[in-house]
């Protein structure tokens, strides 16, 4: 492989990750506020289909993207209503929506199967795109990929640097304490869930109007990305930077699977495509194993020096979710 093809490949990795970036950031915001939106897998499909249909019929790509966000926001609103107002299991409602939205996208998307529609074009950024290596990697993308880059840093800065972001952390951590500090906990949860949902919805058109343009129904190959985004959110420890790292790692693995295809001819392509899943399970294992009780017991049985090393290692890998994730808030 030449350096040029590797560069093109890596730039492709960055672009192909953009839908997942939005989904992971959206889910991170929602979960930071204490609401788990499990509907993601269906939302992305429905948003992909809906935005493609709108962009196709109106020939307006921007309208398509807005439709995707609207769909994500509406689905998230249902999750929020059921979880926050009705205090039902967010997992149950999210799961049902995941399946329902998926089937709905297949049903409504039937007429758009395989039609060719509008697609976002690359917009190289003047001057910067001519830089060696960096220009090729970062500055010859379409608009939505640039936005995905910006979204990572904006979300990170919002959560960890701004006043409302601090409150957001507080709402997911201990809503009662956020409440006495003046937060309208349930309203904020609604807002973040809906905004998060809109970002998740943005992943749909980022697929169907950009990285994987078009709608192919069940063979679109989009089914499953929502579940991956959910895993990456955990892997990312509810931090947009770490989540973005996980997303790019995942995209890189998928690309490697494709690149290695000609070398590993006896392995069907479908198998290589799922290669990241066992890896995902393994990484979840790594970040969670410190929470298992037997580990603590095993540590206690170790000699002092080994214990210290292992304990430090486990603590470094470990991530823990917002303490009030999935728990409805009631004043008193």
């Amino acid at each position, binding site marked *: 492989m030449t350096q040029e093809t590797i560069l093109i490949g890596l730039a492709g990795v960055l672009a192909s990750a953009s839908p997942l970036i939005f989904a992971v950031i959206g889910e991170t915001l929602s979960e930071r506020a204490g609401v788990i939106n*499990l509907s993601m897998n269906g939302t992305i499909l429905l948003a992909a289909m809906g935005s493609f249909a709108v962009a196709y019929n109106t020939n307006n790509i921007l309208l398509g993207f807005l439709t995707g966000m609207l769909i994500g926001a509406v689905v998230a609103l*249902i999750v929020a*209503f*059921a979880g926050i*107002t*009705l*205090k*039902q*299991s967010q*997992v*149950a*409602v999210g*799961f*049902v*929506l995941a*399946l*329902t*939205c*998926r*089937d*709905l996208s*297949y*049903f*409504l*998307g*039937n*007429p758009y199967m395989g039609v060719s529609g509008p697609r976002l074009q690359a917009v190289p950024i003047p001057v910067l795109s001519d830089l060696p290596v960096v220009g090729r990697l970062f500055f010859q993308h379409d608009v939505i990929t640039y936005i995905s880059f910006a979204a990572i840093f904006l979300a990170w800065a919002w959560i960890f640097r701004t006043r409302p972001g601090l409150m957001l952390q507080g709402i997911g951590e201990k809503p009662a304490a956020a409440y006495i500090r003046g937060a309208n906990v349930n309203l904020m949860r609604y807002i973040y869930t809906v905004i998060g949902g809109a970002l998740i919805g943005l992943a749909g058109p980022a697929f169907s109007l950009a990285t994987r343009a078009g709608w192919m*129904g069940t063979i679109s190959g989009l089914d*499953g990305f929502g*579940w991956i985004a*959910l*895993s990456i959110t*955990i892997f990312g420890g509810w931090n947009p930077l770490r989540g973005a790292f996980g997303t790019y790692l995942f995209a890189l693995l998928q690309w490697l699977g494709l690149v290695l295809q000609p070398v590993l001819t*006896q*392995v*069907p392509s*479908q*198998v290589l*495509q*799922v290669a990241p*899943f*066992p890896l*995902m*399970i393994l990484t*979840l*294992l790594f970040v*969670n*194993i*410190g*929470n*298992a009780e*037997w580990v603590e017991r095993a540590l206690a049985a170790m000699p002092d020096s080994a214990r210290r090393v292992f304990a430090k290692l486990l603590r470094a890998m470990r991530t823990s979710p917002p303490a009030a994730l999935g728990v409805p808030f009631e004043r008193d």
Partner: protein
Amino acid sequence: MLKGRLGNLAYQLGALLLSFGVVSLILLAVGASPMEAFRNMFNGSFGSMRKFAEVLVAFVPLLLVTAGLLVTFAAGLWNIGVEGQVVLGAIATTWVYRFFLDSSLPPALVILLAILGGMLGGALWAALAGLLKVFGGVNEIFGGLGLNFVATALTIYLIFGPWKRPGVASMSGTVPFPDEFSLPLLTDLRISPWALALALMGIVFVYFLLQGTYFGLRLKAVGKNFRAAYLLGIPTWQYSMYSFLICGALAGAAGAIQVAAVYHRLIPSISSGYGYLGLMVAMLINYQAVWAVPVALFFAALNIGSIQLPILMKLDSSLAGVLQGVLVLFVLLGEGVRQKFGGRANS
């Protein structure tokens, strides 16, 4: 008490009507006649003995999966990996069949071994999710989802790799097994009474397990409060594992039936989504085993009936999934509305 139950029924019926209403609107939106669609779906599932037999073919794995899920739900576990457990049941059954393909064992014994093998396969796959949960701290939802994808990949790998048809591998699956390896079917129909009996036995077993036994009570204790159950002396993680194993075995049986009585070979989409559908059924019946049979039958009928839609009306058959999903959603929301605005639910 009776009034409470009637009220409950009224709520469920209300949810049912509402979801038919919503789906009608969706149908109108795509320019189709709701009445025609529902009539076609009804005729497609109950229009003839042959069609009703098809409904039963779908009902068997769905009921088995639902029965299994009731056990993991009782233990407080969201066994979303049930889909993969169905797939592994099918793979294991196929493996047993292939192993005894040229043996001189009586076919009935091979079938029995194949089904037991399927149950074992499903149980082992469930055990994997269980081990990840118990010893790795990995939430069963994420572990299970990952394992589902791996199970699908494994199926495809086997169909295109080691178990491929002579000549060219294809999405149509492995070479069909000889007829004598099939569970006996009713004349002219595709349903096997043996499979039906197995499914009904499964749900009866689960009903008694959860209602009357120490095992069931302990399982519920673990599900409702893991920590307190441990302090009460219940071997908690073992019980979590048992529930995974039981559910996996029942899901594996569903996969085994798919191979032994329906497809007679391994195909890429062998689970037909019955795992996920079983989760919906379990939620809809509020985790009560008594309602499993009618609701699973209804869901199976929707699935089979919707097959007519593409043929007769050029609509996608995923409408069944939409209707099922909207129904479960309304029941969940209705439950929430009742708790919030209707005073105490169980007083």
